[in-house]
């Protein structure tokens, strides 16, 4: 199918700012879904609140636009009650890891088959550029006018520690890798987390003097390497991309089916 067959065209052009990386993630996601040949009626897109959350309104799937931080909790209800559905949960960084941090770690621990895409632009965009738990020490935002003294999470480390059975990272610059990792994350039989570094030129880029969208994407190109690259040994500050965790553990919905069998044998 053409890409446009997967979107609700009447809502385009979308509301995101010029150069916003979220559109590139949407682009990659649709390609992944197309490559996988998924039936639109078997996909549920659950999102929270913020710029990222608007993604669910643009896709022609079942879409559930929920509360700030709660997307994974709603998604857990959808998935467990109807495990045959593919549940994809795009979230912003503040959405997923500040207000939704508890739901995030517990969904990972539970290993319920869903795909969490953390669209990490290191800022609260919808409210006008406040710092998020992923902004990082020393960054500038409207609520840290003298510089940020909050330290950031590493999404990959956090998801790994919380027990996610698939953990990966890429960026909006690396678009082939983006679609490939989304495909692998959706195909994974367990809870998958994909962090996508995505530019917010309007708030993060401008305030931190990184430049426009293209220049922010150049930073992703320059400052990231594939996992295992020699460059990382030479320069430990480089951020690794690729699949960090990919393992098989009992999946929650399948485990619950066993519970039902046990309960019925009683």
């Amino acid at each position, binding site marked *: 199918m053409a890409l446009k067959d997967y979107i609700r065209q009447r809502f385009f052009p979308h509301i995101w700012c010029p150069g916003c990386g979220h559109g590139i993630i949407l682009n990659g996601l649709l390609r992944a879904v197309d490559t996988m040949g998924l039936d639109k009626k078997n996909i549920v897109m659950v999102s929270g609140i913020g710029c990222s959350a608007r993604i669910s309104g643009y896709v022609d799937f079942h879409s559930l636009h929920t509360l700030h931080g709660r997307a994974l909790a709603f998604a857990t*209800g959808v998935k467990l*009650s109807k495990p045959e559905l593919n549940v994809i949960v795009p979230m912003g960084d503040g959405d997923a890891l500040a207000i939704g941090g508890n739901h995030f770690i517990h969904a990972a621990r539970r290993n319920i088959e869903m795909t969490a895409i953390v669209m990490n632009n290191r800022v609260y965009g919808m409210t006008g550029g406040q710092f998020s738990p992923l902004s990082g020490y020393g960054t500038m935002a409207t609520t840290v006018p003298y510089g940020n003294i909050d330290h950031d999470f590493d999404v990959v480390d956090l998801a790994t520690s919380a027990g996610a059975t698939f953990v990966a990272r890429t960026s909006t610059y690396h678009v082939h890798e983006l679609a490939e990792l989304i495909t692998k994350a959706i195909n994974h039989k367990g809870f998958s987390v994909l962090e996508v570094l995505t530019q917010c030129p309007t708030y993060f880029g401008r305030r931190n003097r990184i430049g426009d969208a293209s220049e922010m994407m150049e930073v992703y190109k320059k400052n990231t390497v594939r996992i295992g690259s020699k460059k990382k040994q030479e320069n430990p500050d480089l951020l690794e991309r690729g699949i960090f965790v990919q393992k098989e553990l009992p999946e929650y919905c399948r485990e619950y089916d066993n519970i039902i069998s046990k309960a019925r044998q009683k």
Partner: protein
Amino acid sequence: MHDAIKFIQGNEVCVEAALYAGINFFAGYPITPSTEIAEQMAVRLPETGGKFIQMEDEISSMCAIIGASLTGHKTMTATSGPGFSLMQEALGYAIMAEIPCVIVNVMRGGPSTGLPTHVGQGDVCQARYGTHGDHAIVTLTASNHHDIFRMTIEAFNIAETYRTPVILLLDEVTGHLREKIEIPEPGKIPLTKRLRTAVKSGVDYHPYLPREDGRLPMSDFGDIHRYNVTGLYHDMWGFPTDKPQIVYGLIRHLVDKIENNTPKITRFRKYYTKDAETLFISYGASARSTLHLVENRRRRGENVGLLELQSLWPFPADIVREACQHVPLVIVVEMNMGQITKEVKLAVDDPKKVFLANRIDGVLITPTDIRNTLRVIQGKGV
């Protein structure tokens, strides 16, 4: 022969009733004094092929039952005061997005963590006004096992009929009390099925366009119709909008579908009210003590009666007004500082004849407590 006479806790009755009503998804978090509902659901639901999940908190429990309702399931959660506070955010979402589900609050003493193991009825106004924004809400309650069974089923039926969350307010006493319950034969109590759309594939389906009778046929996630669900003001397809006329239409619809159906939603019991000169109004555990007193006084020839409310919201003002019309003295019995008393005063012609008999110390109000209040009001001394 239906093996149906049980001697169990009120919380367990609630579970049996939910199963009777066809529940197949429960999400919850342990909290006294509601925990037995979750524990019993964990045992019973998988036996019927349903799903139970213990979530990380009450916020996520409420969110999960909304998600599961959207795939076409009858869903419920259970909690008590502090957890009920955490659920208010998603409760508002369920109201806005019109998601049928049932929330049980087994009330304890509050505010805050308050009195975890003691009774209270202080969440009546929270049930009504707890979530932000204008809205209407349905809240049922019960004072005995027979009624817990019926009201739990009613809660599911009303949720499906009006596409709305329904709150069932129990309390520590009714929840933990053990008494006899006869579980009715399957089919004896009517159940309301989910109203699903007949719109065929390829034809435009409007999940948020009410039919002439006000009901909105649903389509399950995973079924042919792909639509949007949001907590934002939305159009008939479920897509966000801030157009004033659509916003106005939606808030009117959300409130009117409940308030205009108050007579259909209202549930109550009357005891000796026809010739009553003193009318008690009560609900939940307080109504048990009140009924005991009323029967006692009747045996002594006093013309006292009881109006037991089984639905608190939308407040049955017409029923209350009518019952109080020719009664010189009205006493509302509740274990809070007068949350329903205020409503009764608003409903009756002469609010000065309405008094409150209460306890707010975590101890079940007794018939003697109520009698003492009655004697004080009558100027007889305790």
